[in-house]
């Protein structure tokens, strides 16, 4: 029976390398670190997942990338007619279409990112059960892949601003920070929902309603000035209020007299978004060890 060795002669032992990466596999206990270093190491895969999502999104559609423009424009037209013309929602000194569009821009980004990251883990079951990578990059990629749509929709905004003769101000430079807040909020809630979705598919059904109701409590189709002063603090619990109002202020501030620059309530919005983000990441990491078993 010694013939087996005959077939495989002595192996060439590879040169010992100075640093051999070592993986230790053990049952995890207690709360885990967020593994941010591992996420960074896998940034190329994250990049590929984002690239894949973007590339696939409008595949086999006749209108292709035009959908990116159509979606916010169509909702703007519908809202302008319903709320601007029929219901006469006050939009201050600016025409209602651009009043609505300036808010729809961050809102649409937020809504699609939240929905994508919430369903991302379940939709990536085929990857999760077959290959290792830090699971956090899945919901993160869901939030990042919406940025291209946002950028294209932003170009439409520039055209509209030119049309309505609204010049940008220095406040426009704050937009990236506001966008970051929208991303953090979407990712924070997305992490919670994505992890819950693995066990409870109810989340899939819940998300459309959640987003719809959330839009109504956020001053997207109306201005927060419509809300009595004593309830304003309640609205600030919703970080998206700060984002949407901030966008309006930064873009249309010179024409919109009652647009408020970000104040203490905005700081509260940031705080809440961060709490949700960090707790979401911890919850996600804590539950991810069972993803492959139950997804």
């Amino acid at each position, binding site marked *: 029976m010694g013939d087996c060795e005959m077939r495989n002669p002595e192996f*060439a032992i590879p040169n010992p390398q100075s640093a051999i*990466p070592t*993986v*230790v596999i053990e049952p995890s206990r207690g709360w885990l670190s967020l593994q941010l270093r591992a996420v960074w190491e896998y940034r190329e*895969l994250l990049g590929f997942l984002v690239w*894949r999502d973007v590339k*696939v999104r409008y595949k086999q559609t006749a209108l292709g990338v035009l959908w990116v423009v159509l979606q916010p424009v169509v909702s703007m037209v519908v809202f302008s007619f319903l709320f601007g013309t029929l219901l006469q929602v006050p939009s201050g000194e600016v025409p209602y279409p651009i009043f609505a569009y300036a808010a729809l821009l961050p809102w649409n980004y937020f809504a699609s990112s939240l929905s994508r990251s919430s369903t991302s883990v379940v939709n990536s079951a085929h990857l999760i059960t077959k290959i*290792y990578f830090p699971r956090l990059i899945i919901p993160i990629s869901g939030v990042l892949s919406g940025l291209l749509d946002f950028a294209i929709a932003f170009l439409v905004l520039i055209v509209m601003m030119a049309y309505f003769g609204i010049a940008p101000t220095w406040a426009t430079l704050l937009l990236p920070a506001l966008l970051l807040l929208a991303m953090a909020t979407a990712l924070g809630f997305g992490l919670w929902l994505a992890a819950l979705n693995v066990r409870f598919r109810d989340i899939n059904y819940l998300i459309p309603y959640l987003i719809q109701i959330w839009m109504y409590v956020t001053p997207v189709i109306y201005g927060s000035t419509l809300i009595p002063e004593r309830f304003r603090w309640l609205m600030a619990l919703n970080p998206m209020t700060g984002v949407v109002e901030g966008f309006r202020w930064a873009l249309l501030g010179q024409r919109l007299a009652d647009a408020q620059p970000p104040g203490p309530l905005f700081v509260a919005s940031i705080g809440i978004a961060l709490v949700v983000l960090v707790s979401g990441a911890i919850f996600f990491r804590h539950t991810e*060890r069972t993803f492959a078993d139950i997804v």
Partner: protein
Amino acid sequence: MSDIAIRVENLGKMYRIGRARERRDTLRDALMAGLRAPWERLRGDDRREEETFWALKDVSFEVKRGEAMGVIGRNGAGKSTLLKILSRITEPTTGRAEIHGRVASLLEVGTGFHPELTGRDNIYLSGATLGMKRADIARRFDEIVAFSEVERFLDTPVKRYSSGMYVRLAFAVAAHLEPEVLLVDEVLAVGDMMFQRKCLQRMQHLTEGGVTILFISHNMAAIQGACRVAVLMDGGQVVAKGNPISVIEEFQRLAQNESPRQALQAKDLNIEECSQVPVRITGFAMYAEDGTLTRTLRFGEAPSVRIDLLAHEKVCAPAIQLGVRRSDGVKICSYSNWHDGFKIEYIEGECHLYGRLPPLRLIPGLYEIHVLVWPWGAGHLGDALEQTQPYVWEQFGYFQVIGIGLNEHDGVFQIPAMHWALTSDSGVLSSGDIPEDAIHGAFTPPG
């Protein structure tokens, strides 16, 4: 630096099963269960006791650097669970494992492929998913394309590929990974023979380059060909480890203990029909040339066989067939009284059919033994399933052929030529008959 690449210590994985009525898959169920729980606890109802199942228990082994280890076992033995834990897809419940070196794992062909994207895009995507750097993929892109043989369709979405093209492209990406430790699960189960051979060659190439491989397969020939050590798993535990041949022998013993009848009939034959058959195959034995009971033959040895039959009623003119399959399922040859014109009037009660086979010049490896009883003239193993059903069909484990100097690259069997002659314009340079004993005796490799 230690020379151990993979060290596994007391690894265990527990799954919670059962409680089918109380699985909380929807929020409503969870809420209901939550509401009921205190009430049930008050009543002292312990139906909630969770049933647990250890898919893996106390598994320990080591794989040396540059060694290829095969993992075999029946379905549900815990092989895949082991690989999932080592791949860090799921966590162990107990124990610990250490892997030294860059790990790549192949649990399926085409991980990370997206049907809407083109072949070109998928090479990058799948490469990145399997752990390659973008620069590495770009560097080896042409090699990958050449290996896959799908150049012409590189800009076609892979959803329009044939399954063969898809598998080839997917494997081409995987084959160009440059890991130090490779974990492979049954990837070879897909694809045709050519493809399987390409995979095996690639794995041999990797081990020669010092890559450590852990390889799960049901293909005993592949395990034997590619691995220097093997472990046998059963019931979530390692029950044997060492030389692949002895571990495979152990596996055969294990496989014989479970009823082969159930395994085969459930899958291949109509059970209803078989329960009415008037004959059963109760045993099979193989003897070496010296008359000892064996399942190990030397290359070129002529074994004898005994088939035990039990006929509940008179079965007229049975055709009793012994079929030999290679362990990867390829049908090799068969022997039957019908082929050879040995007519049996009838069988009734207990009887035994003895046969002396010719020298089996099968390439060393592992072979399955199938025994079938047919109505006279009904056909043979080849067209069994389409046309007539055999009365019974059972697998009786494996036998192995040992010998040196030949391997699967020489084909399935090797029979010497009768005569060789070398000529040129000036006449016969040399010629020779092949001696009789080379035809009947054991193979001696030249030199």
